């Protein structure tokens, strides 16, 4: 931060949606922070989107409601938006723009960091391969999350993604190391009750101490949502790469972020892309998702779990579609399982963690992890086929082995998938359940696991 102040301009040419167009501007810079002052002395923040021909287009984070052309001033601050960071941010609750929301003073900053972050040097990136235990069996056992990975959760309107997000935030830990672990939680456009749930949930579980919360609620201006993931990731990068912590960033709900982006794009009269989202949605999302990883020579890591609700449960919608191109797998929540009352309703057949193979096995989780997981995946897939068949020919028309697979499917959903929201299972417990499920099948059906593991863990039932 410099002592230089900015020039205040009072010629407002136009106010359009969340944008203010300022006339006769010289020396403004792209992304520069702008303070908009109303006639009544109220101050709002914004940033420069475009400059040229003596005009500057300013995007006002808190919206332009109540602003008028006369009496409004725009002060160009001379710097980009920065987030004050220090270890003291842990245990704090901020709003979507990074201002304290817990009644406590601003954190005493160790540094002020540009919220747009610095791109990670691809050559410096370290391949993620260390296991993160979430305590949720289906994730740890079959869609394993590793440090430095970006693994989104694709959900649908009204489903239990927020419960999953809060449970991951409360329970997540790194096993087999004494390194510090932190959670940065960014709620983007969530309802007040949900924001309160996240805060209380972390507070009551004692996890708030190692967490930083950014809460942008549904009644906050939509444009603020553009900033929320960026301030959250700025803090995460500081904790990870300056303080050497392993940081898990949970961003929920990225659909609200994309909608805010669409709002700005429409106000700027840009040519719309699919479903009205801007053509640069992919590029923009990548500026968020790519801020995850590990760097050579640095101790910490940033792991991202962005959560997005798919409009009409449509996985081909531009938001999940483009997210899927950037991230390393996905956890998909299934409507059918949700309707059956299964929590967490993870549809494992549509879910995948691309980095799982590198984060599990001997030295990370257990040597048999990959094989038992594959076998259960295979068995559950077969169970689904058998269920479909039973729907046509009836249970009486099924063979004995088909019935066994059907049983495996039921047990998988009841004992493995289903879990209480406060149940924190260790990886050993999770693998134990997977073996109990597999043990329901005759030994000759187990084709994906080495004999030595079968001899060790299989208990015929």
């Amino acid at each position, binding site marked *: *931060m*410099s*002592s*230089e*102040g*900015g*020039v*205040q*301009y*009072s*010629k407002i040419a136009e106010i359009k949606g969340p944008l203010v167009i300022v*006339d*006769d501007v*010289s020396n403004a810079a792209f992304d520069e922070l702008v303070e908009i002052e109303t006639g009544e002395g109220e101050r709002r923040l914004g940033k420069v989107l475009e400059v040229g021909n003596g005009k500057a287009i300013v995007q006002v984070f808190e919206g332009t409601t109540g602003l008028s052309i006369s009496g409004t*001033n725009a002060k160009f601050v001379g710097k980009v938006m920065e987030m*004050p960071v*220090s270890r*003291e941010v842990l*245990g704090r609750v901020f709003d979507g723009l990074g201002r304290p929301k817990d009644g*406590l*003073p*601003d954190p*005493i*900053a*160790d540094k*002020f960091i540009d919220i747009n972050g610095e791109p990670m040097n691809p050559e410096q990136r370290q391949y993620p391969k260390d296991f993160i235990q979430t305590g949720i069996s289906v994730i740890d056992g079959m869609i394993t999350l590793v440090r430095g990975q970006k693994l989104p959760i694709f959900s649908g309107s009204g489903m239990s993604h927020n419960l999953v997000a809060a449970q991951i935030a409360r329970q997540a830990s790194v096993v087999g190391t004494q390194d510090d672990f932190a959670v940065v939680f960014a709620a983007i456009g969530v309802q007040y009750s949900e924001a309160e749930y996240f805060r209380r949930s972390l*507070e*009551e*579980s*004692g*996890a*708030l*101490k190692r967490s930083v919360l950014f809460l942008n609620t549904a009644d906050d201006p939509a444009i603020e949502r553009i900033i929320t993931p960026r301030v959250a990731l700025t803090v995460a990068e500081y904790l990870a790469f300056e303080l050497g912590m392993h940081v898990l960033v949970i961003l929920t709900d990225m659909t609200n972020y994309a909608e805010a982006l669409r709002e700005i794009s429409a106000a700027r009269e840009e040519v719309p892309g699919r479903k009205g989202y801007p053509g640069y949605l992919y590029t923009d999302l990548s500026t968020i998702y790519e801020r995850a990883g590990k760097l050579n020579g640095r101790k910490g890591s940033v792991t991202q779990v962005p959560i997005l609700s798919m409009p009409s449960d449509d996985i081909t919608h531009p938001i999940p579609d483009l997210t899927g191109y950037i991230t390393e797998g996905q956890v998909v929540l299934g409507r059918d399982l949700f309707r059956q009352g299964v929590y967490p309703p993870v549809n494992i057949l549509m879910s995948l963690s691309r980095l799982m193979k590198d984060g599990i096995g001997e030295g990370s989780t257990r040597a048999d992890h990959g094989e038992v997981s594959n076998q259960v995946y295979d068995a559950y897939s077969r169970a689904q086929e058998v269920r479909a068949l039973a729907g046509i020919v009836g249970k009486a028309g099924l063979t004995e082995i088909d019935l066994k697979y059907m049983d495996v499917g039921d047990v998988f959903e009841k004992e493995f998938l289903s879990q209480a929201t406060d149940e*924190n299972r260790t990886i050993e417990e999770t693998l134990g359940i997977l073996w109990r499920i597999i043990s329901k099948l005759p030994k000759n059906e187990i084709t994906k696991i080495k004999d030595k593991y079968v001899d060790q863990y299989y208990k015929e039932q």
Partner: protein
Amino acid sequence: MASNSSLEQAIDKILEKTEKKILLDLENANSAAKQTLEDALPKIEQEYDQIISNGKKEADKIEKQITGSSDLEARNKQLTLVEESIDKVFTKALDEIANADRSGDYTNLIKSFMDESTKTLGTTEVLVFTNNKDKDIVQSLISQYPGAEVSSETIECLGGVKVKSKDGAMTFDNTIDAKIERLKPLIRKDIATQFGVVN
């Protein structure tokens, strides 16, 4: 009599047979009970271990909750206290600045503020606003800036100048108050460091 004795014999036989059967049943029941007990033992032990492990998990969870919230509470109290102290230091410093001697280097300071302001706005065709205390100093410097005028209006500030282009389109606030406001986060850190709160 003979028929009585054979009847008794028959009854004895039945009794003996029944007794044997009952004894055998008892023995079987006893061994079945023993077996059930033996079978139940590992199950009980397993359940016992499960209860102990669940209890331990619950205890760990409660311990984390208690230590987590008390640590945070203590830290938050410390933050509030530090902030109160910082505010006190600020108030005292602002008082001292407001009552500072306006002679000597102060004129040079105001000149540097004026230079900076006109350079930032890119023109000397400006209207300069200041407070009552600094008005004379500004007035003495104004001739060095062609086209500049001192406003008859005064502004509330600790010192320094606020410069506005004559067409009213641009304003540059270069008062001491504005500078302090801009530097406040850094000054707060310095004060907190003095208190030994941050490194």
